[in-house]
């Protein structure tokens, strides 16, 4: 698969605050990659470094297998923080400037304005727009000229529920076209709904990354029961990934160190001559999981 972005050990310090600390990330073509982390975890700083807004202290990164340049940025559409446009110019004029900088033709302008629902207001000055419209114009500008990568920093921040739903549909539509998306968010729910891959950041460090289904939706907690509960207790304690267990009425709640599949545990116990009468995955809520992850690593 084609590697879109490769980050090797980038760091950035603001005074004595380590905003990004030795970050390594690889992103491949077609992924919808989520950067997940609480406020102040270094998501925006990382994206700003990738777009040449902020100078990194250490490390390296490559776009499309080449050192970063203005040419690579022309292939990237970005929505970073607040929408930034010339307030006294219309949406069309602003997008023309963007097209000029990106060396893209003007034919796309009407198209992206229609996609983002701003076509009716295309000749109004930017400063007359509501916040939701400004945000959509930022997305329109990012979509201009069919970028290879779309970078979105908290795209639903400050939008009303309807706006959030529209924005998510828009992002999904873009992802369906095969455009690689990098999305920074502090909302688990958002990352889980939109992303295929995720890296969890805290205090500028990557805690882990992988496919969303692996990282976020796994069960590390199993409910098991059998006729001889004492024997079961001894057998499961020998499992290599065993962490701890508690008795809950007539079942054992078993915690594992790493994500584990129910079938694997069943097979493991069966080999030891134990036939389970009850086996179920207990899914913790994502929030719980996320908070535990952050807690374990801080």
């Amino acid at each position: 698969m084609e590697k879109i972005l490769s980050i090797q050990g980038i760091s950035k310090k603001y005074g004595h605050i380590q905003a990004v600390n030795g970050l390594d990330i690889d992103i491949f073509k077609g992924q919808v990659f989520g950067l997940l982390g609480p406020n102040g975890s270094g998501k925006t700083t990382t994206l700003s470094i990738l777009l040449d807004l902020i100078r990194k202290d250490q490390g390296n990164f490559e776009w499309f297998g080449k050192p970063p340049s203005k040419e690579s940025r022309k292939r990237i559409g970005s929505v970073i923080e607040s929408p930034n446009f010339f307030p006294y110019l219309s949406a069309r004029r602003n997008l023309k400037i963007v097209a000029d900088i990106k060396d893209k033709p003007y034919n796309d302008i009407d198209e992206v304005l229609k996609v983002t629902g701003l076509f009716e207001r295309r000749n109004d000055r930017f400063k007359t727009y509501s916040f939701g419209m400004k945000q959509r114009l930022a997305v329109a500008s990012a979509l201009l000229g069919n970028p290879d990568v779309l970078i979105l920093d908290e795209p639903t921040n400050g939008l009303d529920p309807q706006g959030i739903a529209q924005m998510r549909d828009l992002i999904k539509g873009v992802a369906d076209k095969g455009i690689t998306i990098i999305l920074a968010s502090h909302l688990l729910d958002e990352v889980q709904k939109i992303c295929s891959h995720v890296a969890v950041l805290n205090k500028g460090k990557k805690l882990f990354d992988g496919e969303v289904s692996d990282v976020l939706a796994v069960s590390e907690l199993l409910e098991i029961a059998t006729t001889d509960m004492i024997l079961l207790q001894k057998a499961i304690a020998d499992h290599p990934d065993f962490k701890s267990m508690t008795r809950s009425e007539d079942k054992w709640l078993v915690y594992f160190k790493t994500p584990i599949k129910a079938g694997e545990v069943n097979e493991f116990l069966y080999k030891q001559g134990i036939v389970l009468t009850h086996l179920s995955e207990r899914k913790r809520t994502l929030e719980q999981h996320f908070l535990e992850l952050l807690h374990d690593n801080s």
Partner: protein
Amino acid sequence: MGLYFLFLVLGILMAGFTINSWLDNINKHSPIPFPHITIYFFPEIWHNIMFFASLRYILIFPAIVIIILITNEFTNKTIRQNIVNGMSRQEFLLSKLQLIFLISVLITIILIIGTLIIGMANTSNYTMAMMFNKMSFAGGFFIQIFSFLIFAFFTGFLLRNTGLSIAIFTLYAVIIEPVLYVILKIPPLQPNNVSQFLPINSVVRIVEYPYFPVLKKIMGLNIQEQLSLLDCSVPLIYSAVMIGIVYIVLSRKDL
């Protein structure tokens, strides 16, 4: 901004006519005739108009426009957006310098056209040689406005705040530097006229005060006949240093 200087030229013209008509009135009653002011005659008109146009109180207005243009890039964060969209930091600097250059050229051209028209309308017998004799003052004016606008750009770029930049730049150009100029001239401090090299003064002194021919005859003062190469190069050196500093800061700093 072009209009501003067009009105300026017209303003000078009106002022001259008004003074001349006053003089006409006075002459009717006066035993000794006052000569008319002759500031619109070739070739002195070049010197006169360029001098008025390059007064620091007049250059300050286009300078404020430049300050607003550059600080707006920071307050609207459009500089960030432009970089993100694929402009390099060097291209950003170059685009602003091109704009300043273009504005300076346009204003100079407007002044040249205005001067030619007024000169032709007021000079009765002129030759081509007379007409273009002192046109070099227009070149001097171009250096003046260009470097003055670069100084403004420099201030706006470093401070990033519109109000603060305008206040500090105006205060410095109109009050602080003239005071400094005088202080530096006080005997113990000045061995060899350092004050003439203060940035704003180095710009203003390119086209010196045009002692009107009348005054010259009366008082026997010296008129600046041509521009001095040294005077012209000092503000350009300042500009180059400032552009260099902006380049370094822009290349290294987070936006």
